[in-house]
């Protein structure tokens, strides 16, 4: 089903003949009901005015524009939505949700789709973003607050970027930046610990979405 959805979804507007030969859409029309039952997202209120896409500051890095993500969700093209780069590159700046004339919570939907993708065990189209978020939350489990000096190194290791960063010179730039921050007393070597960190851990553990996220 994923493959079919991909074929049809990626040919919209372009190869009409191809679409006629591939008429099988397998839309999951229950998807919209599931979305609408999961939060006050108002996805079905979308009338495709594209205000969201027009104001989006990250649209240049998206594979599917936000208005199309909403449309695909309404049409039950689950795989297209959950496999997109768009849901991961969204910077959560909330311009879309703010400007939508119909109250569609587009940015919140992007979060919801990310969570669904993780739950479904779908490999994120932008694994680095997913690994960063996961590393951030794991970092919190240590002390209940962000331990900045530990966050980025852990992220680089877990996203398997260390070697390529050394090769590209990116590592040198980052180390220089960290040293500078340290010299300016803006990076503490030890994390500040929250007494109630057990509580923080249980919040993060009990609500941790299951399934692999990478």
């Amino acid at each position, binding site marked *: 089903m994923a493959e079919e959805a991909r074929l049809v979804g990626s040919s919209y507007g372009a190869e009409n003949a191809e679409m006629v030969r591939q008429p099988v859409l397998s839309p999951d029309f229950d998807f919209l009901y599931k979305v609408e039952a999961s939060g006050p997202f108002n996805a079905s209120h979308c009338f495709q005015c594209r205000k969201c896409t027009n104001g989006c500051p*990250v649209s*240049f890095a998206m594979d599917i524009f936000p208005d199309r993500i909403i449309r695909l969700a309404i049409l039950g093209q689950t795989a297209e939505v959950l496999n997109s780069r768009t849901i991961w590159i969204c910077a*959560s700046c909330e311009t879309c949700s703010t400007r939508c004339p119909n109250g569609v*919570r587009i940015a919140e939907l992007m979060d919801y789709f990310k969570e669904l993708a993780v739950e479904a065990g779908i490999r994120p189209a932008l694994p680095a973003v997913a690994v960063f978020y*996961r590393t951030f939350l794991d970092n919190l489990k240590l002390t209940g607050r962000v331990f900045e000096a530990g966050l980025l190194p852990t992220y680089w290791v877990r996203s398997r970027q260390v070697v390529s960063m050394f090769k590209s010179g990116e590592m040198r*730039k980052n180390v220089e930046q960290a040293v500078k921050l340290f010299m300016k007393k803006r*990076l503490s070597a030890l994390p500040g610990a929250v007494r*109630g960190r057990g509580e923080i851990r249980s919040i993060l553990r009990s609500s941790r979405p299951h399934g692999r996220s990478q």
Partner: protein
Amino acid sequence: MMKATYYPGCSLEGVARDYADSIKCVCALMDVELQEIPDWNCCGATAAHSINRRASIELPRRNLRLARTLGNPDMLVPCPLCFNRLKTAVHDLELRNPCSEPPQGLEFPKIWDLAAFFATDEKLEKIASRVQKRLEGLSVVSYYGCMASRPPYITGAPDYENPLSLDKIVKTLGATPIDWPYKTDCCGASLIVSMPGAGLKMVEKLLDMARRFGAEAVVVSCQMCQGNLDMYQDRIEADTGKHYGLPIIYFTELIGLAWRLAEAGGWLSRHFIDPVPLLLRKGLMAGRG
């Protein structure tokens, strides 16, 4: 002396120490006693609301519960993302219990974005009364970023497409606030780490526009925006061959400068793009304090 609950947020203990120090100093002189929430925790930030919605509500809710024990009517939050997440947690509770008023004494404090708190008429008057040296001749753009304004159904911001709090403060200090179109355009936040190609592009766009409108510095209230525009500026210059040299100054630091506080030099020395040469050139600083 007014007492206010204070939620600094994680980065003000580390990368944004300059912001934290300037806030403490300026608030003390404004007769605002900051009472830090005991044992506060991280709000979960973008990571939590992206992949763990429940935690994104539960984490700030713990802070709200702790904040209630202090019993102050107002709570000041300098980090716009923390502000946004705390407000979202309150909003979530109201959605769940639309009819029930919280029992007496158990109300949450009013959550303030720090810049909005400083831009009330009363506080502006207080800021003005302490100005020793008006920052005449300094032209700046105010950069608000996203989270103090959007979405308005969370933030309650009345002027979310064209916020004015920082501009009002800048004007009170004698500097010139330039009207520019990217006040609330996103800096990319953590994308600069996870998707540097996209993140750097977004910062470059902002710096370009600030230059085009003749800004000599950018005034901010968000430490994430400050970090992205300040710490990565030399890298963008190296990558693109453009030159900016734009200091990115917290509004609380700017207040300290106009008040001629000796501490201001120390705060500014923690920046990557050194604001001191510009301030010396304009005669707005007596030398490193």
